[in-house]
């Protein structure tokens, strides 16, 4: 019985050429030996032949279908390119904002410091030192505020600080699969430093000390298979 069920299941496979010779032979034998199976087989064969005939009358996809598909694809790609261009422009705009908090301690910090000192030195014996320490804090404030961020100094992620006003810089996006080690080795090979990033879409700002090397450096980076996008910053 189980054998018959298996053979029954094989009728569609037999009719669509999916059986081995041995399996086909088994079905052929069943057709000869079992009239009920033969009837079953004949019904399936009729379905198969009927569908094959039906397909002859079926309409084909319209002649312009492929060009409609390509129009859709072109529109999709244009939209994608536009979105990525907008993302890059947004990323470029971000590093231009000067973050004064990186170079100037906030005023709140000094106020807090003075307050804490006051509480430490509120004991009468220590009162004599308050004036001197307040003077010292005020002095630090004045020094730090007068050395404002005229040149943008970034805390680098790959090494010592780079002053971008003296070098040249570029926007780079690395492949998602790029490892930190690969990025570090590539940047070391061209003496470039990461000075900002990554942004929301993975954009880094790289800098090199000598602007004369920018073309060669960009060429090397562009050729590296871990770099997805590169653009010189103006």
């Amino acid at each position: 019985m189980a054998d018959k069920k298996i053979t029954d299941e094989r009728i569609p496979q037999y009719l669509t050429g999916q059986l081995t010779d041995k399996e086909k032979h088994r079905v052929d034998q069943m057709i000869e030996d079992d009239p009920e199976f033969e009837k079953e087989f004949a019904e399936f064969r009729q379905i198969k032949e009927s569908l094959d005939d039906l397909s002859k009358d079926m309409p084909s996809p319209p002649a312009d279908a492929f060009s409609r598909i390509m129009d859709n694809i072109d529109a999709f790609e244009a939209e994608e390119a536009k979105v990525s261009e907008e993302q890059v422009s947004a990323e470029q705009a971000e590093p231009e904002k000067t973050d004064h908090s990186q170079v100037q301690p906030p005023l709140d910090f000094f106020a807090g410091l003075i307050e804490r000192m006051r509480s430490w030195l509120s004991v009468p014996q220590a009162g004599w030192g308050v004036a001197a320490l307040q003077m010292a804090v005020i002095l630090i404030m004045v020094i730090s505020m007068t050395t404002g961020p005229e040149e943008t100094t970034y805390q680098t992620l790959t090494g010592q600080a780079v002053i971008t006003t003296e070098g040249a810089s570029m926007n780079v996006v690395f492949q998602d699969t790029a490892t930190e080690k690969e990025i570090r080795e590539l940047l070391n090979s061209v003496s470039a430093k990461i000075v900002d990033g990554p942004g929301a879409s993975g954009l880094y700002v790289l800098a090199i000390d000598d602007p004369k090397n920018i073309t060669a450096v960009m060429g090397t980076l562009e050729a590296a298979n871990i770099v997805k996008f590169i653009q010189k910053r103006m």
Partner: protein
Amino acid sequence: MDKETIREQERQLLERVIKKDKNAFEALYKLTSQSVYFYLYRLLQSKEAAEDIHVEVYTQVWKNAGKFQGKSRVKTWIFGIARNLALNEIRRETIRKTQELNETFRDDHTENRVNQFAQKQHLQAAMDQVSAKHREVLDLVFYHELSYQEVSMILEIPENTVKTRVYYAKAALKEKLIEMEV
């Protein structure tokens, strides 16, 4: 060309499509579009809807080629996309349009065909009248000649359910033929 060669060709073409090769995409389209269109036409029972969804299917193939995981044959994967889009279309249009279409088909078309044609045509007319679920499984197995495993992937049902559905579809077809011949 045997089935294995065609499968390999489909796979190689899709690999090139992933790399955005438009010539390979066109070749893949030529290789598969006729049967995808046939499948959609039978599922949707409307030439216009089949045409629109057909265009959408290949647009999705281009966009999502990179997501193909190689677990199935490329054609099976495309059929899966076609089925999902067709089912969405059926859900959108449903009731009003499909009912309208079925009524028209039954009243004006099928009955005449049944009376005019011989046994094979009777069978074709009956096939148009069985449920979409049964028609679909018969199409996939007998016309598209897909294996039970491939059909189970497209329909997202177990292989054994495919096998039993084929038998129920045949039984439903027989019932329709009896009804029509009365």
